[in-house]
């Protein structure tokens, strides 16, 4: 087990590597306002982050990651493009596995406002690949943007697309919705009864009979969803062929060039993904230009779907194949949408990633033995 001083020395080496690559070093506060993080990540973050409070500022969280405060900093003051690197502790509550650390160092690199997303993605990935190259890690890549584009291209109502997009990061719920929209799952009995009753008596009568209006969710809110349910019930199911296309795409796991070729075939029937595929192709060219052997690079279409939901484009991770028990040594991706949420009207393209130096150190030592 490495001492904290050794981990910090390793972290400093990685931090210096990113500074040499042109990133400005930045710091953020350890205590972050809980409201922003909760609003972004939802209740899940409360289970993973340490929450504390004081009488003046209310709930605070011990920094669970750097991304949010760095994005906020850039959106307030930074000019585009900008490259940042940081190094410091993050804190994660562990409830299941006591062997996982609840405090560890992250070293990160973030690139904001680059006009060429393919080149920006490639730059970040290539830097991580270079600094981690002595460890012989397996790299995994994916692209959430492709999945979002595929959903956008299905023949269904905007409301159904929005429901699917919202659950791209919750695969089981996504599957349940897809089954319903595809007519593969039957309409639940209570829903069937409700729809029949609406048909017979009208929504107003149902609302009148439902009981006194209490709470912030108003009668108008309920009426709006009843209306949405009635409209949705009138929609035809999407074709089995389309569901198959999406299933085919979600199961892709092969080298990048093969995955690209496979998805070009899918795009014949699902042309909405063509722009995202062009971006992927441009990214692969940019990666190759930076010396990455893309012919060997893995692409997994569902990669990144179970991690925190701010990634909405290219995603990557680096894993030690000899140590499946370890979390990824490094991970990252594109999070354009997050900058829009935190930017109060302004949005900039953003891509970045983090490394865990204590894992780099552990694997370096293992390799040396």
């Amino acid at each position, binding site marked *: 087990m490495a001492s904290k001083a050794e981990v910090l020395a390793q972290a400093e080496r990685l931090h210096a590597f990113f500074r040499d690559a042109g990133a400005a070093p930045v710091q953020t506060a350890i205590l972050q306002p809980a409201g922003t993080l*909760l*609003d972004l990540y*939802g*209740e*899940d973050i*409360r*289970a993973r982050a340490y929450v504390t409070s004081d009488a003046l500022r209310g709930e605070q969280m011990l920094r669970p990651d750097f991304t949010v405060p760095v994005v906020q900093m850039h959106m307030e003051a930074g000019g585009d493009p900008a490259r940042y690197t940081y190094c410091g502790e993050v804190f994660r509550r562990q*409830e*299941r596995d006591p062997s996982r650390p609840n405090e560890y160092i992250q070293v990160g690199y973030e690139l904001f406002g680059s006009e060429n997303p393919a080149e920006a993605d490639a730059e970040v990935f290539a830097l991580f690949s270079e600094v981690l190259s002595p460890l012989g890690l397996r790299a995994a890549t994916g692209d959430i943007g492709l999945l979002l584009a595929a959903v956008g291209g299905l023949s269904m109502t905007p409301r159904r697309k929005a*429901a699917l997009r*919202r*659950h791209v990061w*919750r695969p*089981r*719920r996504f599957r*349940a919705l897809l089954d319903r929209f595809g007519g593969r799952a039957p309409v*639940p009995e*209570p*829903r069937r009864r*409700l729809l029949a009753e609406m048909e017979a008596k009208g929504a107003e009568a*149902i*609302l009148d*009979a*439902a*009981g*006194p*209006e*209490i*709470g*912030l*969710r108003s*009668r108008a*809110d*309920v009426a*709006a*969803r*009843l209306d*949405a*349910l009635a409209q949705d019930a009138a929609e035809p199911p999407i074709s089995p062929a389309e569901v198959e296309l999406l299933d085919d795409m979600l199961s892709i796991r092969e080298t990048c060039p093969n995955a690209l070729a496979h998805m070009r075939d899918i795009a014949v029937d699902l042309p909405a993904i063509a722009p995202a595929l062009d971006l992927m192709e441009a990214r692969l060219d940019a990666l190759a230009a930076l010396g990455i052997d893309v012919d060997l690079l893995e692409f997994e279409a569902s990669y990144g779907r179970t991690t925190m939901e701010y990634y909405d484009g290219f995603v990557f991770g680096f894993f030690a194949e000899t140590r499946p028990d370890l979390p990824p040594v490094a991970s990252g991706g594109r999070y354009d949408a997050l900058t829009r949420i935190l930017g109060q009207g302004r949005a900039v393209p953003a891509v970045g990633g983090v490394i865990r130096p204590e894992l780099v150190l552990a694997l370096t030592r293992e390799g040396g033995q």
Partner: protein
Amino acid sequence: MTLKLGVPSKGRLMEKTFDWFAGHGVNIRRTGSEREYSGAVEGVEGMELVLLSAGEIPRELAAGRIHLGVTGSDLVQERIADWESRVVALEPMGFGFADLVIAVPRCWADVDTLDDLDAAAAAFRAAHGHRLRVATKYHRLVRDFLREAGVADYQLVDSQGATEGTVKNLTAEAIADITSTGETLRANHLKILSDGLIHRSQATLFKSREAMWDDAARDSFRALAARLGLDA
């Protein structure tokens, strides 16, 4: 060392616990004055009674300060992280039944399932600018349940009592609370989601995996287990 059994120190839960053990030929009772928290066990050698608030029994089991304890399964699952690795549920005792459920206003004619709750939460957040609030004191159980169900756009707000009133008071849009008959929910114009049962709780005899088990404690436990008809 003596085998320490933690039991609720007052009320119906205490009486029913005493009755349950008596029904198995183990007499436990309080000793001393009515206000003194001490007790005795008859029928098993080397056992010591520890009278505790039912809410503290999970903590004492997890810390290994008692070998055995009687408390609601809801409290154990809520208060002990990774509870199965730290305590063993030996025997459900057949009383203290209560269901932890998700309930929403009855006027939500469009909401019957978790699926509906999720969709309603998305629309609510878009319309009102904040997540749909669920009032509860069972944070861990409710969060795990809703995560498993893939419900998003909600947040939990803490409510330690009178949770059924939070919707009317505009501090929450929905609740997750314990109910036995559902009467308080109905009186407060709430309805239970058809798939909203999170946990069916009852008083349960738990064994700590964290406590020190020497030969004496093990012998006492074997004797007790034989009386109770448990596989020791």
